[in-house]
C-alpha cells in the first residue's frame, strides 16, 4: 500500500436553503435554544423542508446533483471523463429509481456503471472505498463519488414538541440535510489529494444496533413501529473508542507516526459529541477539521463537507485522516490522505 493510485481531484458540497439557527428552531418548535446549545452544541443546520409551509423544497437528487456539478467543475474534468458514479445514502428519495440514477440524469451522465450504497454514517466512506477500488484497479480512470441525506421523510414537523422527551427531541435538532461529492482520479490532478488507504469494516456481530431507522410501505404504514430509535448510552461509550482505533489502525498500516499527521477529520455526531471524541483521540498537535456545529449532522454528506474545509488549508506533503463510525450495526470507517 506504499503508492496510492487514487486521488481526490475536487470536492463539492450543497446545503439546502438558508441556515436555520437555534433561535429559529426555538421559535418554530418551542425547543429551548439554550438546551440545544449546551447539550447538542450545534449552532445551525439546513433543511430541505420549508419550516413554515412544511413543503419539501429540495430532494436528495437535487442536492447531490448540485454537489456533483460543483465537484466536476472544480476538478477541471469533463462529463465524458467520468467512468462511474457511487452514491452513499441512508435516505434515498425513493426505493426506485435509485437516487444515484436521477443524479446521473441531472448531470447529463449516461451509459456508465452506477452504484448506490444503502448506509448510515459510513456510506460516504464506503462510497470512497468503492471509488478507490474502481480507480486503483485500473478499471476506470475517473469517477464521481457522492454522499448525502435528506431527513424530510423521517422527521414529521406537525407534532407537539413541548411534551417530547429529550431522547426523541434530539433527532430534530441533531440532523441537517445536505450532499457532498468528490471526483476520484487515477492521476494526481486538481486538488491532488492522494487517497492512501480506506478502511471499511463491519464490527457488529451479535451487537444490538445503536441506531435504527425504519421504513414503511403501504402494507405496514400503520404497524406502530417507532420510526427512529437510538441507544445513546451505547453510542456515547462505543464511538470514541472506535474512532481512536480507526485512526491508529490507519496510521499503523501506513507506517505514519503521530508527529507526521497534520489533520484529523473526526466523526461529526453533534458539536458536543465530536468534542468528546476528539478529546478521546488525544492527538495533540493534530488540527481538527469539523463542520457539524454549522451544518448539523448531515450524515453521508459530512465527510465531503470536512474534505471541502480540509482543501482550504492543506498544503503539499501534509497528511490527514478522516474517521466515520456508523453506530447502526457498528461499522468502522476511515481514510488516509496526503496532498502530493
Amino acid at each position, binding site marked *: 500500500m506504499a503508492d496510492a493510485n487514487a486521488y481526490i481531484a475536487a470536492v463539492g458540497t*450543497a*446545503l*439546502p*436553503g438558508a441556515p436555520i439557527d437555534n433561535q429559529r428552531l426555538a421559535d418554530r418548535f418551542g425547543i429551548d435554544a439554550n438546551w440545544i446549545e449546551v447539550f447538542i452544541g450545534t449552532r445551525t443546520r439546513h433543511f430541505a423542508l420549508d419550516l413554515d409551509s412544511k413543503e419539501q423544497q429540495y430532494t436528495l437528487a*437535487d442536492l447531490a*446533483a*448540485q454537489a*456533483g*456539478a460543483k465537484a*466536476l*467543475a472544480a476538478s477541471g474534468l*469533463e*462529463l*465524458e*471523463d467520468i*467512468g462511474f458514479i457511487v452514491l452513499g445514502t441512508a435516505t434515498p428519495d425513493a426505493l426506485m429509481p435509485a437516487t444515484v440514477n436521477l443524479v446521473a440524469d*441531472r*448531470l*447529463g451522465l*449516461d*451509459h*456508465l456503471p452506477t452504484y448506490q450504497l444503502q448506509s448510515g454514517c459510513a456510506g460516504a466512506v464506503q462510497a470512497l472505498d468503492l471509488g478507490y477500488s474502481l480507480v486503483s484497479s485500473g478499471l476506470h*480512470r*475517473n469517477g464521481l463519488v457522492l454522499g448525502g441525506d435528506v431527513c424530510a421523510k423521517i422527521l414529521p414537523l406537525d407534532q407537539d414538541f413541548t411534551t417530547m422527551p429529550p431522547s426523541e427531541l434530539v433527532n430534530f435538532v441533531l440532523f441537517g440535510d445536505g450532499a457532498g461529492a468528490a471526483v476520484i482520479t487515477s492521476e494526481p490532478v486538481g486538488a491532488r489529494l492522494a487517497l492512501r488507504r480506506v478502511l471499511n469494516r463491519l464490527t457488529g456481530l451479535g451487537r444490538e444496533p445503536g441506531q435504527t431507522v425504519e421504513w414503511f410501505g403501504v402494507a405496514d404504514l400503520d404497524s406502530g413501529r417507532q420510526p427512529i430509535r437510538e441507544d445513546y448510552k451505547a453510542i456515547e461509550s462505543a464511538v470514541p473508542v472506535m474512532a481512536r482505533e480507526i485512526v491508529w489502525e490507519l496510521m499503523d498500516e501506513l507506517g505514519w507516526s503521530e508527529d507526521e499527521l497534520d489533520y484529523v477529520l473526526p466523526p461529526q455526531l453533534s458539536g458536543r459529541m465530536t468534542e468528546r471524541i476528539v478529546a478521546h483521540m488525544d492527538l495533540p498537535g493534530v488540527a481538527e477539521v469539523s463542520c457539524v456545529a454549522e451544518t448539523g449532522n448531515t450524515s453521508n454528506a459530512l465527510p465531503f463537507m470536512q474534505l471541502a474545509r480540509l482543501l482550504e488549508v492543506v498544503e503539499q506533503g501534509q497528511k490527514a485522516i478522516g474517521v466515520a463510525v456508523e453506530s447502526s450495526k457498528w461499522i468502522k470507517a476511515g481514510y488516509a490522505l496526503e496532498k502530493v
Partner: protein
Amino acid sequence: MNEIAIVGLDCRFPGAPDAEAFWDLLMRAGDGGGEVPPDRWRAVECYDPNGSPGRTNTTRGNFVHDPGVFDSDFFAVSPREAEAMDPQQRLFLQAVWRALEDAGMPPHRLADTAVGVYVGVMASEWGQLQLRDYAKVTAQTGAGSSCSMVANRVSYHLNLKGPSLAVDTACSSSLVAVHLAVNALLSGEVDHAVAGGVNLQLTPALGIFYTQAGLSAPDGRCKPFSSVADGIGRGDGVGAVVLRRLEDALADGQQVYAVIRGTAVNQDGRSNGLTAPSRWAQQEVLAAALRRAAASPGQVDFIETHGTGTVLGDMIEAKALGHVYGAGRKQPCAIGSVKGNIGHTEAAAGIAGLIKVALALHHRIVPASPFATRENHKLALRSHGLRLLKTPLRLPTGPVLAGLSSFGMGGTNAHAVLASAPSRARRRSVAGKGLDTPVVFTLSADNQTGLRRNVQAQADWLARRRHESVAPLAWSSNQVKTTLPHRFAVVARSTGELSRKLAEAAADPEEFAIRTGRPEKRHKVAFLFTGQGAQFVGMTRRLYQESALYRGYFDEADEALQPHLGQSVRNLVFAADDRIHQTGHAQPALFAVGYALARTMTGLGVEPAAVLGHSVGEFAAAVAAGVLSLDDAAQLVSARGSLMQALPAGGGMTAVRAGAEEIADLVADEPLVDIAAVNGPGATVLSGALEALERIAQALRRRGVDATPLKVSHAFHSRLMAAMLPEFSRVASAVRPRAPRIPLYSTLLGRATDTEAMDGGYWTSQVVEPVRFADAVHELVNDGLKLLIEIGPKPVLTPLVRKLRLADDLVCLHPAPGEEAGQEDLAEAVAALFLAGIDPLWTGLYGEPDRQLQRLHPYEFSTQRRYFNLPVAIPAALAPQADDRRPAARPAPDDGGGAAENGAPTPSANTDRVTHAVLTAVAETGGYEPGEIALRSRLYEDLGLDSVQVMQLKVRVETALPELSEFTVQQLLPHLTTVGALIAFLREHSTAAVPQAS
C-alpha cells in the same frame, strides 16, 4: 489546424421528425421502415415479388411522414408557388432555418452576408412529374422543379449571398456537398456554410431500377454487413448542418457538436463498370481524408460506413476499410451504418451519416448498428481489424476520431474524418441553490398562432430540463429567438417556473395577450425624471442589491456627489434614516437614483430620444441629454439642496385640484404666494407663506375645490426662495452647459429647449419659476414620443401623464414600480419594452458566467398547410385511376384571428367593386382563399408575390374592372405595398369610383 466545427444541425428521417427523435431512434436501434404511403404511389400496382420487368420486388420502404406539409406563410411563399415547389425544396428550407437556430444564429442576422449553401440532391422525380404535361407548365413550375433551386431557395429566402449550389454525385451527393462547404470555409471564401442533403421518393422508378439491377431488398430494409443482407431499402430524408471554422465558432461561444478534421472526394475512373464499386478507389479516398486530417488510422475509434447491405457492396467496403483502418490495431475498429435504421436515403445518405457521427461524438456514445447480431461471417470483419457494433459503444475519455464514408453509384466516393469537439462548453449547468436571478425568456414567430405553438413547444421541452440553470437558456433565447415580428417575453427565476409560465400562457388567452406584442414600428422613447417628493427611506435598495448594473451607476453618482455633500448618498439612502426627507439630502439622493436608473436603462439598450425632468429631476435629465457632465450636475444639485435647506422655515406648498387660470385671482391677492407647478388642467401647486396658503385654501374650499397642503419644508418655486439665489447663481455660473444631444423638454420653459443655453441663468430661474410640466409633456407627446419611461424611485409622473389623456397609443412604464422593486421588476420592464418594439441589450441582465449559448428547441413550423398533389399518374401500363390533381383542401390560414382581426372585409354584398376585384385577383394570383387576404397584407413580404405575378395581377384586375382608366406597370409599382394601398390606387383610376354593391 484546418478544423471545421459543426455548430448546428437539423434533420428529418423516417421514424424521426427531428434531430432529438433521430438520436433516440439510433440509440434504441429503431427503424423507420413501413409500407409505401398511399399518397406516394400505389405500391401494389407495380409490385411483383419476382421483380418482373417494370415492377419492384417490394411494397415497403423508408418514408418521412407527411412531406407535403409546409409553412409557406412563414417564408411568405404564396400557395400557388408552394404547390409548384418540389417538396424537397420546402423540406430543406425549413431544416436550414432550424439548423441555424440550433447553431445559436437567428437566420435574420446572417442576411446579406456571404453564407454558402451546398446541398446534395439527386432525385428530380417532382420535375419529371410536373413538367410532363406541357399544358400545365406555369411560371412557377420551372423554378419549382429544378434541383439547383433546393439550394437557391434557401439563399433567396434567407438573403444569403455566398455560393449556392446543388450537388449530384448520386448517393454520395450530400457528403460531397459537405466537402465543398468545408473547402470554401478553409479557403476563406465564406465564413459560414450550410450543407446538407434531401431525398424524397415520389415515384417507384428508382425502386424498379434497383429491383431490375438485383439490388432491391424485398423487405425494404438495408441490413448492412449482415448475413441476412439482401439489398437496398430506399429512404427519404433531409438533413442540414451549419459549419464554421472552429476558431470562429469558439470565439463566438458557440456550442460544437463535432469537428470535421479532413474530407476527401475521388472517382474510381474507368473501373470494372460504370456503377460497380471499386475497392482501390475507396481505399484511396479513405487514405486521402486521413492525410488531410493529419490522423493515423489507429487513432480512429469508429467508422460510419456507406454500408448499404448489398452483398457485393458490403464485401468490397469491408476489404477497403480493413486495408486502411484495420491493420495493426490493438482493438478492432468499430463500424456501423445508419442505413439499417432509415434505409438508403440516397442523396441524403451522406448527411444522415454525418449527423449520426456528430451526435455520437457529442453524446460520446456510438449507437449499435441494426442487424449486427446477425453479422455476415463471410466478411470476416475481425480478421480485417473491424467489428460491427452490436451494442452502443461508450467512447473513451479524451479526444476521439471517427470516419465517415459515402459512395456514389457512378464512382464518386467521399470520406470524412471527424473529431470530438474541444471539451469545453458541453457541460450542463445544474441549477444552483434556490432561485436564479430573474431573467427574460423571449420567443418570436411570424404570427400569433405560430407564437402560441412555439410557446407550447418550449414549455414541453423545458419541462424536461427543469433542473438546468435558467439564465443561460434565457440568454440564448434572447440571442436566437427575437427576430420575428410577433414577440413573446416572460420573466422567470428557474427553468421549472419558466416552463410552467410558458404552459400557462399557451393555455390562457388573457395570459398570452399580456406577454405578447407585435410592434408595428419602432417607438421613440422618452425618459421622464421624477422630482422632489418621490423620495422615501431605502428607495431602490433592493434594486441596488440585485442589479450589478444599477449598483455600478449608483456608486458613480455617489462618488460624484461625495465631495459636495461631505458624505455618501448611498449610506444616506439605504440606511433607515429619516434625514432623506430633508431638502439638502432629498435632492442629491433623487439625482443619484435618477442618474443611476437612466444609465441602467441605456445600459440595457433603451436609448431615450428625448428627456424631461420635473423640477429637480431636470438635473439628471440634463446629464442624460448631454447638457451637463455628471460632476457639474452633482455640484449644482448639491448646492441647490443645501442652500434651500438653509432657508428659514415658514414656507409651504399646496396642491389644488383646479387649473392655474381658475385660481389666478386668489394668487394675485397674495403677494407671498406663487404658482409653483402646473401638472395638468386640474392639477396646480401653489407655493409661498403658510398663512397666505391657508387663506387661499379656505377660499377654494368655499368654491368646492380641493386644496391639500404638501409635506414639504420650504416654499419651492416661489419668491420665498429669493434669499438663496445670489449664492446659487454664483455656483451655477461656473457651469459650462453643452447643447443637448437629444431634445430636452424643459419644465421651466414648458417646451423643448431651443437655442437658449441651460446655463447659470437657467438653473437660477428654475429655482423660483413654476414647473410647467403639463405644457412640456404635452409638446413631447405631440412630437411623437409615445413610449414614456419614468425614471425615479416610484411612479409619480406617469400617473399624471395618464390623467392628461394625451394620446391613445401612449405606453407608460416604470422600471422600479414598487417600494420593494428589484431585479425582477427591472426584468419585467425590459420584457415590456421588448414587446413594445425595443431591442434591448440583453447583456445587462446577465452575469458573465450566464452568458453562454445553449441549444433551445428549434422553431416549430405550422403544419396547417399541405401541398402534395400526389400520387401523380403512374405510366399508363401501371397507372391507377387518375387522382384528384388539386392540392389537398387547405384549412384556414395560420394567422391569429384570421381575416377579421386584420381588418379584411370578407368579399360580400356591401364591399365595393374595386375592393372585391382586388381581393379576388390577389387571391387568384397567389393561390390564396379570398378570406385570407387582409387589407394590411403586404404583397411581397406577406403574400410572397413576385414580378411575374405582379404582371398577372395587373391583367386580372384590368379584366375584372373594365372601367379603370389606363395605367402602366411603372405607375402601379410604387403602390404595391399593401392590398389596401393597391385598392386606393385603383380607386383613383376608376371612372366609377363611387362605391356600389357588387
